[in-house]
């Protein structure tokens, strides 16, 4: 399983409270998609109209059931010169970003996250595809991490 993972990585996990946020948003998304796919059944008289909502519902349920594992799979590590980030179990993705490549750091908070005191930290580089977004950090941790990242980037500043 740990085939593609860098050896010796000691992952820092996100707050367990983030599970609530992810569960709720996954549930809402799944429910909305299921209802949307059921529109032909509700509006028309299509014989096989029951198939799309059932399929979508099952997929949504699987995603929902896997949510705790997915949340546990989110991890990051501050190494000497770069930030290591990983997420996903079905679709696994591991990214390494040198601190010097940082262009800016965003801290975002959705309504649900705010109620639980969580923040999302986004590490932006000049490449749009880097896509390093660490969700579910406690507010203070996020701010400390942001300041830490900025300081590290400053001491390792490189060009574009």
């Amino acid at each position: 399983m740990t085939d593609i993972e860098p050896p010796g990585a000691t992952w820092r996990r996100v707050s367990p409270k983030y599970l609530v946020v992810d569960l709720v948003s996954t549930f809402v998304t799944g429910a909305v998609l299921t209802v949307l796919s059921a529109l032909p059944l509700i509006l028309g008289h299509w014989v096989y109209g029951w198939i799309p909502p059932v399929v979508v519902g099952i997929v949504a349920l699987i995603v929902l059931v896997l949510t705790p594992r997915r949340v546990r799979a989110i991890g990051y590590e501050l190494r000497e010169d770069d930030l290591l980030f990983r997420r996903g179990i079905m679709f696994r993705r591991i990214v390494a970003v040198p601190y010097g490549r940082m262009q800016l750091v965003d801290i975002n908070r959705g309504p649900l996250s705010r109620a639980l005191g969580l923040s999302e930290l986004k590490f932006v580089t000049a490449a749009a595809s880097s896509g390093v977004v660490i969700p579910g950090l406690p507010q203070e941790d996020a701010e400390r991490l942001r300041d830490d990242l900025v300081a590290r980037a400053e001491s390792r500043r490189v060009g574009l």
Partner: protein
Amino acid sequence: MSAALPVVRAQELADGEWHRLHPATPLLRGGIAFLAVVGVLLNNFRERIIDLFVGAPSYRGDPVDYVIDRGLVPLALLAVIVVLALFVAGYYLAWRFHSFRITEEVVEVRRGILFRSHRKARLDRVQAINISRPAFARLFGAAKLEISQAGHDANVQLSYLSGTSADALRAEILRLASGARESARASAESAPVPANVVERRVAELLAPEFDPAAAPPESVVRMHPARLAGSVLLSESALVFAALLAGLVVLTSLTGHYYFAFGFVPALLGLGTYLLNRFTKSLRYSIAATPDGVRVGFGLLSTTNETLPPGRIHSVAVSQRILWRPAGWWEIRVNRAARGHDRGSQQQQRSTILPVGSADDALRVLGLLLPGIDLDDVRLGLAARGVPGDGYTTSPRRAAAIRWFSWRRNGFLLTRDAVLLRRGAVWRELVIVPLPRVQSVGVRQGPILRGLRLAAVHVHTVMGPIDARLGALDPPDAAAFFRYVERGAIVAARGDTSHRWRSGEATA
């Protein structure tokens, strides 16, 4: 703003004082707008003008008839003249309020009459300097100088300058940006200039793209128009064009109705102009090395000529579409940090460094773009399939399930200063990312890849037409790739001085 700005002279433009643009600027900008207005008017009055000669019935009740019937012609003419005068005055004022300054560190532009804008750009962040000469402006010996910066629509445009001062100014900006300590101003004086204005214009029109003093006059690639035409004809869009044309002919001749033309002709016209544009824009192509980077020139009537300082190229792709294979042609595109607000075709042109060339041409161009690269590695990267022992780490046999034809070719090579990704058997491609330009690196495994015990890697660079990813690798290979690139990118970026590319040189 004081009226006593110094007279514009080529060598003094970069002295840290405020300067104005070429005095003909209002005419050139206004003139182009004026031509556009005349064009629109002519288009609208087309029927009327035809009527004038053919004598068909006139259109009652439109504004022109109204003016003529009421005897308001003098008044109408007066109105036209006043509007024109206002335009000219507006352009003149815009020119008066448009000034620029180039210092050791920054280039600044102030512009606007009512809405003032002041743009300041750091010289060590210059991504490219482009001199373009639109056909109309060329008649007046004027040129547009554009300093591209990283980011969307983040360029500084100086339009217009006189052609010679644009060249001199570019050399001066590059010198300031490069961090070289000694001025090269003495050598900026170029060949004797004919005294007569007409002779000078003719000389400029015929002159080679490159100032012989500033660059080796020989382009490293000779672009034959026939090859360019062939490359355009052997493209997917040309095939679509031919198919559409054939469809139109067949449908029309079978049914005898002409109304199919309404559906086909607009598409044909669009595609035709696109193809023609691709051809004419790449005519007179030239590429050469200068001390301050690669210089690429394009264009027959409207020419552009761009200098890319070292280290401004974020990734390079050498590709061969299947139709080009019999001819052995390759195309070279690059990712760069500067992104204009231009339309798609122009964007495409800016990212295309070599529109078409033989394998040898491609290798020569790569040698200019990435001076450190080992061309033998590239040659192996262009080869049809991988040979064991060629240095490339290729996909395992089981990858044939998702890389039917290319699993022997699909692979990567890690060198001291670059990553080479070789992929595609039908549409062959070799992507090269210099390690100092790597923004981040990722490794990925989805359900299908995991089922096949494979993994994919992705080198993230600035946005552009090239996506440096490689799929279907053995997971341990992918992990090794990840470790190497992640480490190598940090080390390479630390040792990189290309933002001030000549700062390391001794004072000459």
